[in-house]
């Protein structure tokens, strides 16, 4: 049983275009049976935040290749990628590298 979590979800590098142009979202994740991890967060984002073109952000279980995920300014590969358990007041940043220049 997971308590409600308050996290900040940020988007950068062009990913914000899919979220109405808003870069920072302060979200409160509701309490639920399973603990909150990135995998569940992505499902939640797809349902509640993503405004258009889900295939440009999510591919299958994970993010589309080319989108970096940083948790508290650290690479998610160091934290277990999709299995990282979210904690209160975490900052999750999604940067799209596909818009180069």
């Amino acid at each position, binding site marked *: 049983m997971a308590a409600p979590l308050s996290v900040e979800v940020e988007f950068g590098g062009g990913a914000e275009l899919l979220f109405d142009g808003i870069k920072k979202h302060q979200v409160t994740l509701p309490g639920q049976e399973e603990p909150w991890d990135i995998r569940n967060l992505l499902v939640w984002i797809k349902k509640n935040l993503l405004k258009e073109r889900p295939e440009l952000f999510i591919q299958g279980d994970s993010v589309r290749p080319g989108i*970096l995920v940083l948790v508290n300014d*650290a690479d998610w590969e160091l934290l277990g990628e999709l299995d990282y358990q979210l904690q209160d007041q975490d900052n999750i940043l999604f940067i799209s*590298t596909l818009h*180069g*220049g």
Partner: protein
Amino acid sequence: MCQVGEDYGDPAPEGLPPPRPGLRSRELKCVKCKEGVPVVVIRAGDAFCRDCFRAFYVHKFRAVLGKNRLIFPGEKVLLAWSGGPSSSSMVWQVLEGLSRDSAKRLRFVPGVIYVDEGAACGQSPEDRAKTVAEMKLILQTLGFPWHFVALEEVFGLSPSVLRCSAQEPVGAVGTYKVAVDSFLQQQHTLGTERAGGSPSPAQGEEWLSPPGTQESQDPAGPPPAAQTEALSRLFGSVKTLTAKEEFLHTLRTHLILHVARTHGYSKVMTGDSCTRLAIKLMTSLALGRGAFLAWDTGFSDERHGDVVVVRPMRDHTLKEVAFYNRLFAVPSVFTPAIDTKAPEKASVHRLMEGFLLRLQAQFPSTVSTVYRTSEKLVKAPRDGCAAGPRCLLCMCTLDVDAADSATAFGAQTSGFSQTQPPTPRAGAGAPTEAGGAQDRCRGAGPCGREDSRAQVIEQLCYGCRANMKDVPSLDLLPPYILAEAQLRSQRASQEIQEYLVENGAEEMQTAESRAWGHQESGARIA
């Protein structure tokens, strides 16, 4: 071995391969300093802490410049900035590099150029104005002289931008070292003179004057509406996104080249990262530009002669760039480009990008392998002849033999016989001495248009020809392209005519001498 009817059991499980163990533990330390807490994973499994990552990133930038030894001290270098992460990172590195202590300081004189492509990307005027304001804000804080140009200015370019200027002799490695030594010596004497109180020589002041005093190029307002309209129409008429992207790249290159030549910049730095170059390599192969891979993806690109395009970010992957920009607060502005939100199969570029990045997710050495391959490409001139005709648009040495393309020639001449015969020039304009070939119908009639299209097409390389297929009407092209095409075509046919006239004269001479000799012998007999 494989046999028909044999059952191989369940198909392989879908999804990513199991995550690598060891990276999960929080006790992992930075691989470089062995004590910092790692924040980013580079390549396949190297975890770096924040400070080591910064040192690694900056070192790579300096190493790429130092290894290639192409940029001489005091040289004027134009930084092509698009607002995106890679070019912003590059500009930031140059900024930091110039402010270091004198031994390790970068020694060239930079300027920054930004090309506003809003009209080609279909941005509304309000969005465009907003983007422009954001860009100018950053440009002003940099402290370099900056040039702000709108893509519409291609309609005002002269055909000379398409001509390859005389190449400056590159010189051996020895010249580079000599240049650096003499620069350092000059700095040293300047320093002692200053300390002694005597006035410093004027030449030294050029290098040391504060950049703000040099003029920055800033147009007063938005470009004329007619030009914006023409540009939107041009890009609206191009049929495929692939051709649009290629064409946009070509026009942008011409514009930057023009600015560089006008203001005396001998080098242009672009922010192409490792990932982008790997994608570009594969895309170029698919688009028929395989002959020019070494120039398109190498460190230096000297096809323009006097202005050399240099790619100092080519060792950095997009992931490293994004991390560095985030961790060290490098300002960058996001602008929608021509392929924003385009679906996966919208263009060859998108397809190739999706392919490479998906492969990279499963096999982390994909991008670096493609990149290493590009490093091995050698710029060998075709058949040993470096000075052949050049493509009108991309300015690479033509890879299509005009003489060999018999089908193309046949298509052209059959087109001629089918259209009306050339109208005789009744007193209009002095007929040139060359005569015949110049009598092609050139005018508003349909056969004139076919002729001018063929004129342009035959001066393009294979890749550019394939692109042109998706541009239905050449009338919408900026005038400098059509003017240069006509000029080159005239020059070519003039050369042919001169050759024929010469040969004709020779033949007459031999015929005369033969007749003369005959007469003489006849006289003797008689």
